[in-house]
């Protein structure tokens, strides 16, 4: 066969395969928007569910997801950024550092349901927090760490070494250099990492199954030790556990969840590309 013809055919196949990866993404989003948008109304977003969740709104689930995400941020941001600073600025290439990196890779690879078991074993039962926002936020926070650390470390490493050298030559200490120069320069990258981690936490269901989630709880949580409904778990419940659920509400819930997660995704990439263009070095 003519080798140029072979190239034409091969490239056509590769293009087709790439389209097969991307087109379903549009398809999923399109179907959920098309079938879910009719459910979205002020009532749907701000009311309690009633009639066995087949009517009313999903306010407690939305609020629950926001509270959980905020709690996750409180756990993941200090630990994640501290860990990142250590890895990027302090750690030398020893076997211990390699252990830390291996631990991060492993945290990233542990199945989400195993995080759920861990949260149940440690926070809910052993530390006696009960199924609560607190237990869920701690579980999700630990799960989020590897995403935060790997993205933030990239941002810290991107800050040129000269900046640190200049700081030292002016008599600044290592911490002053980090605090005054490296962190401010790396901030957009760190924020991107935090958002990417949090959006993953916001969409997760398995880790909150036994640590936070309430099947049906038409009151708003009052303290970190309350249970709460959450959007991903609510979507699971109304699509598998409740017979005779109106399709509109299912798709509407999916749309709200997808909307929150994808807008965080867009926000993260906007920040990233904006600062990458603005950056002077």
């Amino acid at each position: 066969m003519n080798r140029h013809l072979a190239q034409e055919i091969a490239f056509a196949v590769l293009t087709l395969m790439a389209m097969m990866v991307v087109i379903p993404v549009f398809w999923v989003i399109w179907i959920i928007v098309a079938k879910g948008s009719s459910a979205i109304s002020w009532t749907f977003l701000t009311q309690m569910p009633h009639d066995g969740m087949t009517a009313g709104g999903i306010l407690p689930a939305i609020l629950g997801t926001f509270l959980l995400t905020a709690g996750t941020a409180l756990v993941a941001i200090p630990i994640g950024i501290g860990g990142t600073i250590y890895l990027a600025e302090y750690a030398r290439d020893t076997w211990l550092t390699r252990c830390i990196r291996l631990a991060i890779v492993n945290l990233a690879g542990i199945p989400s349901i195993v995080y759920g078991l861990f949260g149940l074993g440690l926070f809910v039962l052993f530390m006696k927090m009960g199924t609560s926002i607190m237990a869920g936020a701690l579980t999700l926070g630990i799960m989020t760490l590897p995403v935060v650390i790997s993205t933030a470390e990239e941002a810290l490493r991107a800050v040129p070494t000269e900046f640190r050298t200049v700081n030292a030559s002016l008599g600044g200490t290592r911490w002053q250099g980090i605090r005054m120069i490296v962190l401010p320069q790396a901030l957009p990258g760190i924020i991107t990492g935090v958002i990417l981690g949090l959006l993953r936490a916001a969409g997760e269901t398995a880790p909150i199954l036994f640590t936070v989630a309430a099947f049906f709880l038409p009151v708003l949580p009052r303290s970190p030790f309350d249970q709460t409904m959450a959007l991903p778990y609510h979507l699971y419940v109304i699509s598998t556990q409740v017979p005779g659920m109106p399709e509109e509400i299912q798709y509407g819930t999916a749309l709200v969840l997808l909307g929150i997660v994808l807008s965080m995704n867009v926000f993260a990439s906007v920040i990233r590309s904006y600062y990458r263009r603005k950056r002077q070095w």
Partner: protein
Amino acid sequence: MLNNKSSAPKSISSFEFAIEAIIRVLGFSTIGFVLLIFLFLLKEGVPFFYKTDLINIFGTRWYPTFDLFGTLPLILGSVAITVVAVIMALPMGVATAVFIREIAPGWVREILKPMIETLAGIPSVVIGFFGMTVIAPMVRETLGVATGLTIFTGAVTLAYMALPTMISVAEDALDTVPKNYRDAALAMGATKWQTIRHVVLPAARSGISMAVMLGMGRAIGETMTVMMVTGNAARMPLGLDALFKPIRTMTATIAAEMGEVAGGSIHYHALFGIGIVLFVLTFFINLAAARAIFQKRRKGGLR
């Protein structure tokens, strides 16, 4: 007075000492978390292995209400669905990576990359919901099978969930192939495709096998999607026709049953026991793939 002068810098350094100590502790905390997770899985899961006899554990029947804890159908269920998903995802993932890195013009790349990132961002419960309401009925009608909730349906959705990871690792593998290799092949008169096929891909082979490992790790640990689209019947996936029958995975078993089980019962310990199996499996998969990730980190980022 003299004292005062010398104590000023000293107070700064003790403040810094404290800060650096905290940072050091936080740096090592990730190791602590991994150990803590393993410890608590062991604490709750190990009783299963000495309270239940081995014949039962490795049996083929999982009926906790009758004290039958045969984990074999669950393990095989996870393995079957992971293998099928990776077989589907591998050609698509490698092809897409090659397309993005070697063929696509810049503007196409600018569209493809964010779409793949979007795919990575869709919550698994949303993909599960979509698989249940849209893909499963399609599978049932086109194939004329009893239910659309099958290994096949689960593997299709899992393949798409594993793709973003596989594509980005495969892309980096292609990226590490030295430019000289390509130039040399092209200078010998090879076409661009011949270069990709016979030079670039073989040189990127080890990186691509890492992509497969990571995709496997992603697929075997996925919970919500498989729970929603595979029908959750704990049966042995034997024979080719099992592909179009329901199955149940380890992850889905934990997720579906933990809510209803009495704390401290054998069933409760059994679910943690499955958790140990999952932890150990993914640990070794990631250990094997760690090399790819370390190479990746040197050039930056998991995404």
